[in-house]
């Protein structure tokens, strides 16, 4: 089924072949999960939100527009669900990153030099606002184009260019500050 595009599969789902949504889940859930984690959602909530995103896609499959970029739609929903999640939990913008991100490195990476660098990156990420983490995640970890990010976050490409630079600048300040110590 790998030769089928996300959009082809989603069209099938829309036409009633809902089992195929499991394929799209398989393809994207890891990235979606990390999108939540890296923006500051705890481990178990990240899974919960990821399930919610796909449940909502299932529920609103009829509103999927033919050929519309599936990932763009998925992240738009993910972002909205995450915002709601932060709101209801009444946590401010400066969420701590889940411990798992830091603990994971210790367990999985054998090279201590590499481990140190990733730790610095996550610590820097922890020190910047959630909106900035979101932008960096969409651009760097998810490889989304600026046009798509602009649409997902409801702004213009011009604004994204500047916002992205500000976000990276903040990250960079923390990252190199740590590296120098």
């Amino acid at each position, binding site marked *: 089924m790998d030769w089928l595009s996300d959009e082809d599969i989603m069209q099938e789902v829309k036409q009633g072949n809902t089992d195929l949504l*499991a394929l799209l889940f398989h393809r994207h*859930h*890891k990235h979606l999960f990390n999108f939540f*984690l890296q923006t500051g959602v705890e481990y178990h909530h990240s899974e919960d939100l990821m399930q919610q995103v796909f449940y909502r896609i299932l529920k609103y499959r009829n509103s999927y527009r033919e050929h519309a970029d599936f990932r763009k739609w998925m992240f738009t929903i993910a972002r909205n669900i995450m915002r709601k999640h932060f709101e209801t939990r009444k946590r401010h913008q400066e969420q701590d990153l889940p411990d798992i991100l830091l603990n994971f490195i210790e367990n999985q990476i054998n090279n201590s030099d590499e481990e140190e660098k990733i730790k610095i990156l996550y610590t820097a990420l922890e020190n910047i606002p959630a909106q900035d983490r979101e932008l960096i995640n969409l651009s760097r970890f998810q490889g989304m184009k600026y046009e798509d990010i602009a649409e997902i976050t409801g702004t213009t490409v011009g604004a994204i260019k500047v916002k992205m630079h500000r976000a*990276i600048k903040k990250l960079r300040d923390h990252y190199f500050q740590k590296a120098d110590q």
Partner: protein
Amino acid sequence: MTTQKINTMKCNNTQINALLTAYLDKALTPEETIMVEAHLNNCSACLHELQEIRNIQQQIEQTPLIEPPEDAEKRFRQMLEKQSKPKKRSITITVDFSWKKIAAAIIIFLAGAATALLIQPNTETSRSSLASLENQVSQMRQVLMAALIKNDSPSDRLKAVQYAEQISKPSPEVTNILLETLNHDPSVNVRLAAANALQEFAIHKEVRTALAESLQQQSDPMLQIVLIKMLVQLHEQSVVPTLQQFSHDEETHEMVKKEAEEALTVLL
């Protein structure tokens, strides 16, 4: 490179500096790219910054993603299976369902009436083509509908709405009557039926816009929910402000609020 050293270099062109990340991401227009490259020839601060951004981006690329819980996929499949077995119907489906039953009854009644009327002028109709026959039926329905809709009895008005739904090429007059009914009929059932009938005509942009406008006027939660569902399916963007209003307004019914909020998340 020490922190002190960085501080001594400073860029004096903040506008161009702000484009550096986009430059690395190849997201600039050709004009912007030329400007940034010209600037980089003369600005060591930006050159240094560019190198740092590149470093950090490489670091991000080398950072592995964390595995989601192993049974996440299994859980999703189980949810899918549960969903595909029809069980409890949601509110709208129940509404649709009961309405379809009413509709079926009316169609049977209508079919009888229509054939009776059409058979009478036998010599002429036998000569006319099927197309003009349909046209006559359509016209007859329009007339019947216009008459019935003024009736005091809600069930007669329901019939009127059902006539309208059967009209193949509705005149603007028919859609107007339906919209009028949707917005002002005292009976919720008649208003629901009007919404249902209008859905058939939603290929016309004016009808979709009118449906979105109507949502603002409706006070019955059931109708609000039905209209929201309908408009989301029609990708009607003009409904977004109303949905936002619903989600903020404390007076909004809990279920409508939930429906509006969810709808907002899927409308691109």
